[in-house]
């Protein structure tokens, strides 16, 4: 399987998905296009482009030739992003960032403990002070007001 064929197949699938999902939106007519009209045109375009990629993708690079040397770091960072997304409003900005930065500096990058603590507390509390207190950009405080 080549990269182009895989991505072409994905684009076609997405196009068909949009065609299916669009059925709840009125299509209208050419003179009065409804909310489903333009998405349908785009979905058809996506299917066509996906098909071209599949048809012309025979000689493209193979999927298994892709290398993922950064996968471990990428997975950890992605996990941190998900953690922030799910918990920042519940436990507050400062605590979320303390945990996230502590994990990235201390566990992933194995930076010295004192430096990890300085960086983690400095950035978490410092950015909260800068944005929330100084610039009046409200950041989540969480259930404990922290």
């Amino acid at each position, binding site marked *: 399987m080549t*990269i*182009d064929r*895989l*991505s072409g197949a994905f*684009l076609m699938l*997405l196009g068909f998905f*949009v065609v299916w*999902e669009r059925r709840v*939106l*009125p299509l209208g*007519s*050419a*003179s*009065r*296009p*409804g*909310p489903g009209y*333009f*998405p349908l045109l*785009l*979905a058809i*375009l*996506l299917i066509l*482009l*996906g098909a*071209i*990629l599949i048809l*012309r993708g025979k000689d493209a*690079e193979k999927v298994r030739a*892709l290398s993922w040397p*950064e996968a*471990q*770091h*990428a997975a950890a*960072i*992605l996990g*941190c*992003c*998900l953690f*922030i*997304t799910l918990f*920042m*409003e519940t436990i507050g900005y400062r605590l979320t*960032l303390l945990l*996230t*930065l502590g994990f*990235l*500096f201390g566990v992933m*990058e194995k*930076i010295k403990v004192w430096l990890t603590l300085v*960086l983690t507390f400095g*950035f*978490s509390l410092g*950015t909260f002070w800068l*944005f929330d207190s100084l*610039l*009046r*950009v*409200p*950041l989540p405080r969480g259930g404990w007001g922290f």
Partner: protein
Amino acid sequence: MEATFQNLVLGFATVFTPTNMLYSLAGCLIGTMVGVLPGVGPLAGISMLLPTTFGLDTTSAIILLAGIYYGAMYGGSTTSILMRIPGEAASVMTCIDGYAMARKGRAGPALAIAALGSYIAGTLSVVGLMFLAPPLAQFALGFGPPEYVCLLVCGLVVLSYMTGGSIVKNLSMISLGLMAGMIGIDQMSGYFRFSYGITALGDGVGLVPVAVGLFGISEILATAGSPEIREVLKPRFRDLLPSKQELKDSIGPIGRGTVLGFLIGIIPGSAHIISTFVSYALERRISKHPERFGQGAIEGVAGPESANNAASEGALVPLLALGVPTGPVPAVLLAALMVHGITPGPLFIKEQPVVFWGLIASMYIGNLMLLLLNLPMVGIFVNLLRVPYRILYPTILLFCVVGVYAVNSSMVDVGIMTAMGVLGYLLRKMDFETAPLVLGVVLAPIIEFSFRQALAMSGGSYAIFVERPISAAFLALALIMILLGLKPLIFKKKDWREKLTEAEKT
């Protein structure tokens, strides 16, 4: 001419307040830092710092953000010359001769010529912007919905052609972006589209989370953990002044780079990157000693550095006059303007003269500040490069989160940023360009609205798009670009775009 002069006086009166001068200076300094640090481009920089402008008045905010934008172009040359690492993509060509000069102990003159070229190009381009944007806006006042649809379609197709790589892949990214732009409440009928019960998606997918995800988070995902090889050549400050011969050799390339950069900057696509490649190729082609290129030719620094600065300001012409961003960075600037209640377009210059002319005046001053500050402060910026990436990337992640969350105080936006980060990471692996996707997202509502209006005007006849001369001309240009883009698919021969993409990767 007299009106332009009066407006410029108004602009300088706006900027010459202590507050606005301070914001201009801050923007230039932050921009330089953003340009110096590899992995933090102007796009991520502007997006991350957008929340810091919420409390400012509109003019100050735009002055600050524009300073970051063109300051980054200055900063990018420092890492290229001293480390052979482009701080941002537009400095790739500067690496070749700039680093070769640094290895010969001529880092100082290379930095000085890069700064001087950037200053001259930046200043002259503002003159171009000042004279070109108002008449273009006046001309665009006659555009109806069909012209707007065709202009935007043409812009997107030109972008996908000029971006490099496969035009089919680029067009798919545009379609994907337009599709993402369909999410939310339909502005004409009030229907919720593709929002799956998530109320926060009613306003649609925001540009800031998409841009930060695709450019900021995906960069972190792709580069974190990679080995750091950072040999920083220290510039010899006593040798900062270029020789007479170096100055003489740089005048022509700076002039040509400025004109080329400004003109290419107006065209959609990765203009600031392309302009540097074109400028470098031109200088080598017309040089009496082309063999010096790659060995430390000053022309190889002066031309591209002038071109990328001129292009970054040329890109503001269609943004401010037509409301059409030509790349992801102008798109984020557009979003920033909209956050502050300003919609760029044909009426912008007429209705918001203080903001427009204040911005123009701030760019004259900002370019001068960058020239005066950057060279003496190069040592400080070099020290920034000594911060290890393993310390830098968690910090960038933190600013990404704050930047995205603060726009709407929404965790859904942070989720979108994460999803876009993963998508951007996978797209990079699969050789897809992400800039067309961002442009698709930002232009989707305008294209759809104008498209439906145009069809309503014509009673459902698509002929309206080819019957009106201006829209027909835009469509013809788009068609030519598509055919040119498909040429390598048919003849199986590499065109300049593919060669450019390969050169960027090496």
